[in-house]
């Protein structure tokens, strides 16, 4: 068993990296603070005056005290016109000893109405529940769809109800705890859930409210008779339990989870969960502020894995990619980490082999990204870099053990795919604030555009406008740089959250533990490996 040593020096580079990381972290924290502020002081106050709890207060009362809670996609919608966070709080928490996916509308933001970002986030939430077999608890209080954006959401939005019932079909319990409005389409959230609890005199669940009923049939009615908790608990039966108040509702929700008789299907932690030997604080200075400078992934792993133990596989071959075995809070994991950005044929072959080995032993895989992509050039094309890259992508795509991705640095080009990027459906993707991701580097992309344009101009026999070219390159570089940063990446839900590097071990453990809620089983079949 090998224990990773450290060579980290607290030198100038370290200090520069640390400063850069702290600055990025401050930007992220500012955004997170904005999500916690919900719809702002005015709406928060109004909500409290009504005797209601905030979304995060509901979650805190729902989950087991002192258990960790991992909020997912907190910055969804960053860079859009919609409030950051998508008006909904989602995370993995522990309820009565059961890891659940919790989703809570934030009614202080436009009444908790669902906009396109909300829907994207909800779909991803349902996917996480399904792929990881996590019971889903919805804390419902939403004014329904954000009507001005209905054209974007109405048709795709139906999938939410489809997926809710498909969770149930897959024996993944679904709960709806209804604290307030859940009307029109929203009424199908409790409708599709296995268990429902409505808060007395608060829950309002109907397809059409009094004005709509009046317009449709002329019938005079009121909220309580159309959709009150009393009515649904005693008459319609849509509510399985009537809660006296919000606290009571959360207590009943906890009771329901306790009575699920839940058991995880994965083997759970099997190794000693001792802390790493080296200080996670140093990760701030290890990760490069400049994405062009690679950093030593062994130093990263030494601050993440149990006891800093890492059994490296194939250490002398394809050394740009680090592969090996470790555990995180007792959960065994196979690690693939980009040691020096480029993936050559050897690295691709090594990865393809290692991924198959992990599948043979049902070990989840951790991909740590810092890649600028597969090597290009005559020698490498002739050497079959495409065939080898294809082997790696084949292995990744057909692997069935859970994949977890940590975007620690660069994630460019096909390297993103080979390292099980978002499109390859890893169970979870987390990013460090300094990560960058794009089809290629900004300078490269601008340069390529320039070369192509110059060639086109020459083909037409025109002279090339060097000044315009310089402006174009600058503009493109700036755009690509901006788009490749962590915040926009997270805003587009290309990850499940930006994390503080010092929390890496905790976050990965929660993700691995969530994966173990379902079966952890390796693949038997792959595509044809091109030889």
């Amino acid at each position: 068993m090998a224990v990773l040593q450290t060579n980290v020096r607290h030198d100038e580079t370290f200090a520069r990296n640390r400063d850069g990381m702290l600055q990025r972290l401050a930007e992220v924290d500012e955004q997170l603070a904005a999500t916690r502020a919900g719809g702002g002081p005015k709406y928060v106050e109004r909500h409290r005056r009504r005797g209601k709890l905030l979304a995060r207060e509901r979650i805190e009362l729902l989950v087991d005290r002192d258990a960790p809670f991992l909020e997912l996609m907190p910055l969804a919608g960053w860079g859009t016109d919609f409030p950051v966070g998508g008006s909904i709080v989602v995370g993995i928490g522990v309820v009565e000893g059961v890891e659940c996916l919790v989703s809570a509308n934030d009614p202080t933001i436009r009444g908790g109405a669902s906009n396109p970002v909300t829907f994207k986030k909800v779909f991803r939430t349902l996917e996480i529940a399904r792929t990881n077999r996590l019971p889903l608890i919805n804390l419902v209080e939403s004014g329904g769809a954000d009507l001005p954006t209905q054209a974007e959401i109405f048709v795709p939005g139906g999938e939410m109800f489809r997926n809710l019932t498909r969770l149930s079909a897959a024996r993944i319990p679904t709960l709806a705890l209804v604290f307030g409005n859940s009307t029109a389409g929203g009424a199908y959230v409790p409708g599709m859930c296995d268990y429902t609890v409505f808060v007395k005199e608060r829950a309002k669940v109907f397809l059409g409210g009094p004005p709509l009923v009046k317009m449709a049939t002329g019938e005079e009615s009121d909220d309580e008779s159309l959709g009150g908790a009393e009515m649904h608990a005693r008459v319609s039966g849509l509510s399985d339990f009537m809660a006296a108040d919000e606290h009571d509702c959360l207590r009943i929700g906890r009771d329901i989870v306790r009575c699920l008789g839940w058991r995880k299907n994965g083997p759970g932690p099997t190794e000693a969960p001792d802390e790493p030997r080296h200080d996670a604080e140093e990760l701030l200075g290890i990760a490069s502020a400049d994405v062009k400078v690679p950093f030593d992934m062994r130093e990263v792993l030494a601050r993440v894995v149990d006891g800093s133990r890492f059994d490296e596989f194939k250490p002398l071959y394809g050394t740009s990619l680090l592969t090996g075995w470790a555990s995180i809070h007792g959960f065994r994991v196979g690690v693939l980490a980009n040691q020096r950005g480029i993936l050559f044929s050897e690295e691709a072959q090594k990865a393809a082999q290692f991924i198959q080995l992990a599948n043979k032993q049902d070990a989840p895989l951790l991909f740590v990204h810092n890649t600028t992509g597969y090597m290009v050039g005559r020698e490498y094309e002739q050497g079959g870099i495409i065939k080898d890259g294809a082997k790696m992508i084949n292995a990744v795509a057909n692997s069935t053990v859970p994949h977890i991705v940590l975007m620690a640095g660069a994630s460019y080009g096909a390297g993103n795919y080979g390292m099980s990027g978002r499109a390859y459906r890893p169970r979870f993707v987390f990013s460090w604030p300094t990560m960058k991701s794009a089809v290629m580097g900004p300078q490269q992309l601008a340069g390529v555009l320039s070369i192509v344009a110059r060639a086109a101009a020459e083909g037409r026999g025109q002279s090339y406008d060097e000044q315009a070219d310089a402006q174009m390159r600058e503009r493109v570089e700036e755009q690509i740089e901006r788009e490749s940063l962590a915040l926009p990446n997270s805003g587009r839900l290309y990850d499940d959250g930006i994390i503080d590097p010092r929390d890496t071990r905790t976050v990965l453990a929660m993700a691995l533990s969530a994966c173990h809620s379902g079966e952890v089983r390796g693949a038997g079949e792959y595509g044809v490996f091109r030889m």
Partner: protein
Amino acid sequence: MSRPIAKLLVANRGEIARRIFRTCREMGIATVAVFSEPDRHAPFVREADEAVALGGATPAESYLRGEAIVAAALRVGTDAVHPGYGFLAENAGFARACAHAHLNFVGPSPEAIEAMGSKIEAKRRMADARVPVLPSADVTGLDGAALREAATTVGFPLLAKPSAGGGGKGMRAIATAEQLDAAVAAARREAAGAFGDDALMLERYVERGRHVEIQILGDHDGTVVSLHERDCTIQRRHQKVIEEAPSPALDDDLRRRMSAAAIAAGKALGYVNAGTVEFLLAPGGEFFFLEVNTRLQVEHPVTELVTGLDLVRLQIMIAEGQPIPAEAHAAELRGHAIEARLYAEDAAAGFLPQTGCLTRFAVPDGVRIDTGVESGSQISVHYDPMIAKVIAHAPTRAETARLLHGALRATEVHGLKTNRDLLVRVLGHDEFLAGEADTSFLERHDAADLGAPLVDARGEALHAAAAALVAQAQRRDSARVLGSLPSGWRNNPSQPQEIAFEGARGALDVRYHLARTGALTIQVGDEDLPSPGLGRCRVDLVELEVDGVLRCYRVRCDGTTWWVNGPDGQSELRELDRFPNPVGADQAGSLTSPMPGIVVRVLTEAGARVQRGAPVIVIEAMKMEHEIVAPAPGIVADVHVEQGTQVDAGAVLAVIDADDDTDS
């Protein structure tokens, strides 16, 4: 007359049975316990070589059944019986029954017990032997002028005492002649009720007196020796609470004179075995005979610690016919010993005895503990609620008081209210430390103040913080998933963890947050604890640093009650439910309709009393009649419907105020 003892039965229970067994083991004597049903699993039963059930729960059904105890002794072939104290210890009939059964009774002769059993007879014999006695008069059967004359002869203030019984029961102080008739009548009633005998005597009452007693030993050769005095001045309702040896009120001369008086008393009685001659010591140094206790005293350990003698061993040797050994002839006094009696009682509520489970009992090392209980024992209604005697021994009185003070303060005694905090306050009280306390100490000082929690409001806030952190550690320790992850970790932290307790002074809301690095912030009520730090934090203890001071707290939980022991004492904190009782729920006791229907009969009316299961209202729905019955006995508070009322499912039909003491 040598009668070696091979096997000894203790006709007693609890701590004194264990105490006697300990010496028996050291002497190689086989041990036999007798026990009542509630005591079946008590430590003293376990520790005996053999144990015989007496059946029953009350003393009358068990430890007072002399014939059953003699039968038990014969059944297992014991050759001696030690009566302990209380129960049959001073029952001449029992001593005689033992003798008839050829069982060696470890105690004085039946005649001596008999003579000292009547206070009037005892006093007469002591006066004859020139032992100073208090002026007194037998007023049995006297009334009116005769009673007043007798009282005048004795002199006021005086004390009315039943001739039978002891332990302060039925005693009454009478300050003036005006109170005489009523007080005597009341004392007679109480004596008749308690002892079946209303014989009464009046005795001079010495104000600011001290209770000083001399331990004597007599053997079959007629030798009587003194093992010096014990001072049992700190009493409540004439029951000893704190005892010590030597007495701070005695000098060598007085000690010699009192010992001589006690020896004279013993010789006059032809006293054999261990006995105690009790005196009332007036502030001027005058002393008066009170009574002779013909048994081993509860407070004997203080004599043992200062003399280095084992009184039980001496009792057994004397019972075997051996002479008093040399070391007991001129016993030296080495250092000072103080005993505190730890009781399950509520000092603030007039020393009301407490019953229940002693969930934990642990006294620090360095003091002697004589106890009949252990963690998990029940303190039952059937017996004295004494938990333990805690006895300290050190070179000087001040050192001993400090040692006992510290040991009691650090004692973990969980599960019920005790007099511990009162004992600690007495041991630290200036008046006590100056040796100036008298028998009215606990009457002159408010017991509720003395017994109030040692832990002050600030301390209690820290105790609540400690309990919160240990509760946290327990939850993390028992977590089924993610147990090794950082406590309360959040990537988007919105609020601290919360837990609320009810303490001695009201609610204590604790909010805390543990950062990724383990750094602690913690708030109790509205106050942030300044510069908090966390050392070890385990399921049973926490090292909490506040404002530059690190303290270790031991914390235990019984269900929803948390017990915290810190350097400043112990707190009892009741954890408040995380989910408070719902507001707006149906009024408690509401009977609701299980389905829509019509009320066909109303079988009760407001104000009526109903029993559990009694039909209250009958509803007809879908051609079937459904009885709505009372879920618990109580009074009908309200009936909301009448015959013919159409009701919806869930409609409240009637409300019943259930009786408080029901278990539903």
